[in-house]
């Protein structure tokens, strides 16, 4: 593309249609061992009314076509394995390969959730050790590993809080949420049956204690605090906030999505947090896989333990582990079975690899964010100037003058060989550039990033059109999202013209 772009070069890349467009009757990609019992007539066994002869429209292709199809598709993706992925709030760190290996072991991947517990001691020990590690890291008393992701962790946490208040006679009405919070927080509060009340951050991005004291009434069930906040800033007054809440019988929930800034350095439990979730698919390196799966364990203080979702892992006399399904005050289950076990395995593998060294990861993550901040201060507007933790949030205020916004800059970053940062939030920063490098980036990669961002800033001033029409080097150019939503095409339909296949 240009001399300025050091990190990427264009390369020929395979086109590929939809798999349905490659189908031809009679091709097979998978064969079954022969049936070793008498065949039955499905029409007879099921009844003619229930019988289905096969799924219309299902593809018929061969194994090599499947390999090629998905291999080609994969080459259209950016990934951590290819380079820096500085999506703020997403903690896109290295996903160790050994974790994939252990999660697939016979005796780990093969276990059925209903098999006798005496035949599941290995699985239960994994759960127990992970629980212990996460409690040590968070400074909490009890934990559930069941929630499937952060958002479900939030829900679980609020249900625990609700159960606690109900036990005290009144579930209360409101949950306070700072305006900088992730969208899942308010969405979750509603599912838990609460009204959302926003709390405004002050000009330093911190909770305004005076205001808070006014807002916290006996109607308030809890406050959901993200710490460090989505501005990447540590909320210094957590103990005071907890005090204000506790004084009115309300509880402090912490969204632990940003634990990567704290692990090994400080513990939410020590700060006065009552309950929190962790995103194992962020802080604890389980792979995002294009959007999931994750796991969102919820750690809590003693006072909430009675309400733990079922089942609860318990150690019996003699050291045998068991699942206790019989918990009178439980909020119930939030998901079938014990949780995303395979994800939990990977998280434990990650923790075991670091041991107490998780602190070093935290330190490196914070060093990296501050290194970027230092490199880009002045080039991009920094709306909140408090010290940055694991991420730094700029705004596009300077570039806006030339009509270039954060999304344009993000798209242009693709041409420079990087995945964009987060553009969509925090909402309190108009035109946010939310940059989280994580500890997994080398100085070399960070230097290239800073250089790329500076170069784009120059382009935004000199040749804004170049930035506004980016990306220029990808196999597809900027995609029409508005059109997609206006007349949604959400599936392939037979009979659509095949000529598009090779487009």
């Amino acid at each position, binding site marked *: 593309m240009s001399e300025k772009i050091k990190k990427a070069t264009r390369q020929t890349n395979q086109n590929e249609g939809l798999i349905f467009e490659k189908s031809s009757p009679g091709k097979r990609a998978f064969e079954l061992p022969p049936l070793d019992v008498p065949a039955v007539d499905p029409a007879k066994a099921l009844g003619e009314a229930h019988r289905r002869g096969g799924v219309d429209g299902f593809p018929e292709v061969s194994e090599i076509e499947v390999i090629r199809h998905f291999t080609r598709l994969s080459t259209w993706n950016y990934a951590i394995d290819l380079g820096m992925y500085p999506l703020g709030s997403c903690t896109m760190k290295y996903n160790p390969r050994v974790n994939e290996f252990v999660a697939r072991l016979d005796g780990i991947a093969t276990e*059925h959730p209903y098999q006798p517990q005496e035949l599941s001691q290995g699985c239960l020990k994994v759960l127990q050790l992970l629980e212990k590690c996460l409690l*040590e890291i968070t400074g909490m008393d009890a934990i559930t590993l069941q929630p499937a992701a952060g958002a479900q962790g939030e829900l679980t946490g609020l249900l625990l809080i609700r159960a606690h208040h109900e036990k005290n006679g009144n579930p209360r009405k409101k949950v306070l949420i700072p305006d900088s919070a992730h969208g899942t927080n308010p969405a979750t509060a509603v599912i838990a049956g609460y009204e959302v009340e926003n709390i405004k951050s002050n000009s330093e991005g911190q909770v305004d204690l005076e205001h808070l004291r006014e807002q916290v009434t006996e109607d308030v069930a809890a406050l959901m605090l993200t710490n460090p906040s989505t501005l990447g800033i540590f909320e210094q007054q957590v103990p005071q906030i907890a005090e204000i809440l506790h004084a009115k019988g309300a509880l402090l929930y912490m969204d632990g999505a940003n634990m990567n800034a704290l692990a090994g350095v400080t513990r939410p439990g020590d700060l006065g947090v009552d309950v929190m979730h962790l995103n194992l698919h962020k802080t604890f390196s389980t792979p995002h896989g294009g959007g999931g799966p994750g796991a969102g364990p919820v750690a809590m203080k003693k006072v909430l333990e009675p309400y733990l979702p079922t089942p609860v892992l318990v150690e019996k006399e003699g050291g045998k582990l068991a699942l206790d399904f019989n918990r009178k005050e439980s909020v119930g289950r939030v998901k*079938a079975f014990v949780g995303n076990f395979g994800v939990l395995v990977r998280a434990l593998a990650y923790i075991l690899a670091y041991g107490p060294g998780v602190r070093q990861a935290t330190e490196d993550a914070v060093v990296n964010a501050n290194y970027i901040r230092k490199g880009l201060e002045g080039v991009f507007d920094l709306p909140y100037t408090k010290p940055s933790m694991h991420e730094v949030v700029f705004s596009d205020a300077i570039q806006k003058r030339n009509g270039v916004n954060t999304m344009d800059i993000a*798209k242009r970053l693709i041409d420079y060989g990087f995945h964009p940062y987060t553009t969509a939030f925090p909402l309190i920063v108009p035109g946010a550039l939310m940059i989280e490098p994580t500890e997994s980036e080398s100085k070399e990669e960070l230097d290239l990033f800073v250089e790329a961002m500076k170069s784009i800033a120059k382009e935004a001033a000199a040749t804004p059109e170049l930035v506004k029409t980016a990306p220029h080097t990808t196999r597809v150019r900027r995609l029409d999202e508005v059109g997609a939503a206006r007349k949604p095409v959400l599936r392939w339909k037979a009979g659509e013209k095949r000529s598009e296949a090779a487009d």
Partner: protein
Amino acid sequence: MRYLPKSPAERQEMLAAIGVKNVEELFSSIPEKYRLKKALNLPGPLSEQEVIRYFQERAKENSGGYTSFLGAGVYNHLRSVVTDTIIQRGEFLTSYTPYQAEITQGTLQAIFEFQTLMCQLTGQEVANASMYDGSTATTEAVLMAERLTGRTRVLVARSVHPEYREVLRTYAKNSGLHVEEISYTTTGMLDAKAFKAAIRDDVCAVVVQSPNFFGTIETLGPLAEITKAAGAMLVVAVTEAVSLGAVKPPVEADIVAMEAQSFGLAPSYGGPYAGVIASREKYVRQMPGRLSGQTVDSEGQRGFVLTLATREQHIRREKATSNICTNQALCALAATVHLTLLGKEGLREQAEQNLAKAHFALTELEKIPGVTRTFSGPFFNEFTVALPKSVKLVNAELLKEKIVGPFVLGTAYPELSKNAVVCVTETTSRGEIERLVAGVRKALAA
């Protein structure tokens, strides 16, 4: 530490560039008093080899060497090496939700294909990119029906997976939903009489599972009519998705909530799997979860983007259709690859093998004096049998033969205390079925 790409010298260089003397300074906004003074008490650090050894040792403490007849929502089906090869490609494994479409077309097209496969399978018009699992998909389907109808009563068949019903109750509790259960008859199907008596115009959703928890296939037609007549929505849960290779899809349903674990996902002690919601096009704006949609780029080429995001929490916040954000994308990809491998004929053949094996197993078990089939309705690869003895005792005997016996119904269904659900898939060999039969015979004789 091997995962950290910095040498001590580089750390120093960077601190100097930032303008701090040491790394502690960067944490100065954390009140001193709360900063940890000593190292966390965690096991490790372990080398790669030791990590592997730790999990190999745990693996040995599990069920290796046993043959299992458990299904009950989690099925042991053939999986292909190809699927695992694909989902381990770094480009899929280590990428995020495809928010930046231009650089994640691979994931987006694969999701689009997943949505298409799910529609074809379920006979529905639209499907989403995945939910956490079948249990939360079922619950979210009910919440969707609530939003669409504005009503709050929910009728759930007792033959729906017990844990799915528990999850529904957990979510329902604070959403002002009232969940009532409808029993089953000797066919193993929904009790039509009780159902008719319970349905009124305050019902938002009627939830059945097919094949249901007893293995019985529900007859959806009449049920759908009555539901429709009452202005309610029919939610059909599918836990054993392979059944759809041989059994008519729930086209009568307004919403299908499916667990896709059977498609290439390991049992993995309960997860991760992939839930799916499929429904009618007209309801799409009330659907939870992500959707990949076809569009064009600025030069008119076909491409895909996440679309209808205004339903989602990151745009709509407290007004979102769900709080779901991270879903089960990689599992959905595995299912996509798996189904693409199986294809039309492969899935049909697999389903018919399940059917044949389960029928063979039932025939053989019924030869044992005192063992009878509990329900008369048609079944796919699971069926319920009544034993002349406590199932727990029989299973304890089977364990000695290295067999994990069928699912004990007594805990969730006290009235079925001597009944068990036997699951047989294409991975169960005839020899294993015969060992089960011999084991049960012996246990009953003892």
